[in-house]
């Protein structure tokens, strides 16, 4: 039985704790083992994400778009594997699983096209009442901790990762506890897509153990609590995040239909607006 590893800094290490856990299909069969991430793994992932942020946010938007598009191509080349994995993980028919995988690929392509447009949509010049050049531009916030949706193991997963990195952030993703395998396969895709190491880090395990470390980590800039179903856990994570004033995406109030076009909010929530002034004069 295969034991899947973590994805940190572009490589696939085991958990430093040496632990792993059993991943079952929705029907109860033993699908594989996955690494059981520890607190130290989380901290190592943050180090990798920080090391990657200057390079990734410093690449041109065009370059980021090309890399994301490459990821979509690689997803498509492994379409059959994803379909069977999603089906085993979430249940449902082959048709339903195909539809989810295709939606995930399309979602990735959609975000690839946003990299060099979001600043045109979200930034602007400001007509100040004086002889000054004044421009507001969005910049990535830095490192984003993401707790991936518990149930939507590929489409939901892609929908929380792609917007964060499209705009230049690096991420540490805590995969769904019970449905981690598509995240592991996605990591393999990312590793072969020219995405620099450390831009996306994927940790499998129990979010009750890893999320608090991520939420309290002083070098993480934002946290996406989308996948936190337990209200008390979500509250305690938001409290921990307040220590260094992380930008927080709260869990959705109701269920999410991941097939609906997402809008720009998952990107703008992870962007900082910088406004630059300069006098004009002969």
């Amino acid at each position, binding site marked *: 039985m295969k034991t899947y590893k973590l994805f940190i800094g572009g490589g696939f290490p085991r958990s430093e704790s040496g632990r792993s856990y059993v991943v079952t299909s929705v029907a109860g069969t033993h699908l594989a083992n996955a690494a059981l991430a520890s607190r130290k793994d989380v901290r190592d992932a943050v180090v990798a994400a920080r090391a990657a942020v200057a390079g990734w946010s410093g690449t041109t938007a065009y370059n980021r778009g090309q890399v994301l598009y490459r990821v979509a191509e690689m997803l498509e080349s492994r379409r059959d594997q994803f379909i069977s994995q999603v089906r085993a993980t979430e249940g449902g028919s082959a048709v339903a699983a195909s539809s989810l995988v295709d939606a995930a690929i399309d979602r990735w392509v959609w975000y690839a096209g946003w990299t060099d447009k979001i600043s045109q*949509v*979200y930034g*602007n010049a*400001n*007509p*100040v*009442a*004086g002889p*000054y050049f*004044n421009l*507001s531009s969005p910049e990535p*916030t830095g490192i984003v901790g993401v707790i991936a949706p518990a149930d939507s193991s590929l489409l939901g997963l892609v929908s929380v990762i792609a917007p964060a990195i499209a705009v230049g952030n690096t991420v540490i993703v805590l995969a769904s506890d019970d449905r981690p395998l598509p995240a592991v396969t996605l990591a393999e895709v990312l590793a072969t897509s020219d995405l620099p190491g450390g831009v996306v880090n994927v940790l499998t395990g129990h979010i009750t153990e890893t999320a608090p470390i991520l939420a309290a980590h002083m070098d993480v*800039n934002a946290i996406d609590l989308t996948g936190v179903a337990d*209200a*008390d856990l*979500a*509250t*305690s994570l*938001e*409290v921990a*995040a*307040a*220590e*260094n*004033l992380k*930008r927080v995406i*709260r869990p959705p*109030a109701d269920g999410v239909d991941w097939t609906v076009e997402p809008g720009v*909010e998952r990107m*703008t929530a992870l962007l*900082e*607006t*910088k*406004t*630059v*002034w*300069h*006098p004009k004069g002969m």
Partner: protein
Amino acid sequence: MGFDYAPAPESRAVVDIKGSYGLFINGEFTPTIDGTTFKSINPATEEVLAEITAAGSSDVDRAVAAARTAYETTWGRMPGAVRAKYLYRIARLIAERSRELAVLESIDNGKPIRESRDVDIPLVSAHFFYYAGWADKLGYAGFGADPRPIGVAAQVIPWNFPLLMLAWKIAPALACGNTVVLKPAETTPLTALLFAEICQQADLPPGVVNIITGAGETGRMLVEHPDVDKIAFTGSTAVGRAIAKSIAGTRKRLTLELGGKAANIVFDDAPIDQAVEGIVNGIFFNQGHVCCAGSRLLVQESIAPDVLDALKRRMALLRVGDPLDKNTDVGAINSAEQLSRIRELTDAGSAEGADAWSAPCELPDQGFWFRPTIFTGVSQAHRIAREEIFGPVLSVLTFRTPAEAIEKANNTPYGLSAGIWTDKGSRILAVADKLRAGVVWANTFNKFDPTSPFGGYKESGYGREGGRHGLEAYLAH
């Protein structure tokens, strides 16, 4: 040869300060139910100005209830074009009463009349004018085709720009269709209370704007009130953090505008006289009571001696004194408490080994005053390089290379603003790119405009006030 200015006092006659003030709830002034009272004083003279009410919990309940009713029955369903008319009217009334507001602001806050008259109050009127125009155009703002307001906004503002901070909060909230309960700072309630009268003069429907005075406890009760949908806070990072924790697990939305320790970077090709004006403006404007103050000077080593000489010459000409004198450059420190905080940190600066130099000037006997001061020989580890002093105190550090300047500038948990002084255009743009700050002033400093978004990175807070971006905080997602 000295150049003496004769006193040029602005008259107080235009202002009519009452002996005591109640709370402004549901369109009228009303006494407290379960609160207390306290005194507001003039920080330049320590005279008592008025008795102010500190709202109690029943008062907070009433105010929030009034805002909720006004939101549901009147303001939240009013067409944007009609909301706009009220806001335009308020902008006009502020402009008409601008001298009265400026004098009152200087008396209550301690800032020079030249600043309140020429900077604060004009920006207040402009803010309402700008956001009035958005009220019926929200579908064009980039937040959806028909964005809705959030509901009731609780707003807590600081004492450094009392009426301007009120405008930054109330104008966008109302333009988007929200109603508000605002708590001005304990030491500077008077212009907010006069603004309440202006709301009455403008016939603003009752409950749309509620002003409840008080101190930290009133503010806490307000932001923790369960029927508040959105909180906007400007103040210290410590309190901002506490508010963020208190709303965890709720659906309340929050924007924060907190402290800063901005680096003002002067490169060796900067024109020295202009840079010195920018340094002085950066830290001594408003007595340094500015969250985005350029409180760390990072000067390139090769020109440091010349810049410091020019800076000291310029500082020696700063006029510290009566805020109502039109010649005054630097006014009073806002309170005894703030003065003692400034002293604690400047004492630490000397104790940690930095060298203090203060402008030689006479200080009045009464009131709270601090001489404009610079510290040289400062290291990044010193408290005066890391902690926000919020006074007319500049910490001077040097650097050799642009990369070093950027690293030092960004080496702070704050990220509100920064300054760049250089003649080289490509360097302005490259350095501006790398500074992790929400506002970057290049070859200028402390410039504000209602159209220009303002706010911080990292622990300086989140959200933006001003401009199109300033609408986002007041619209439902």
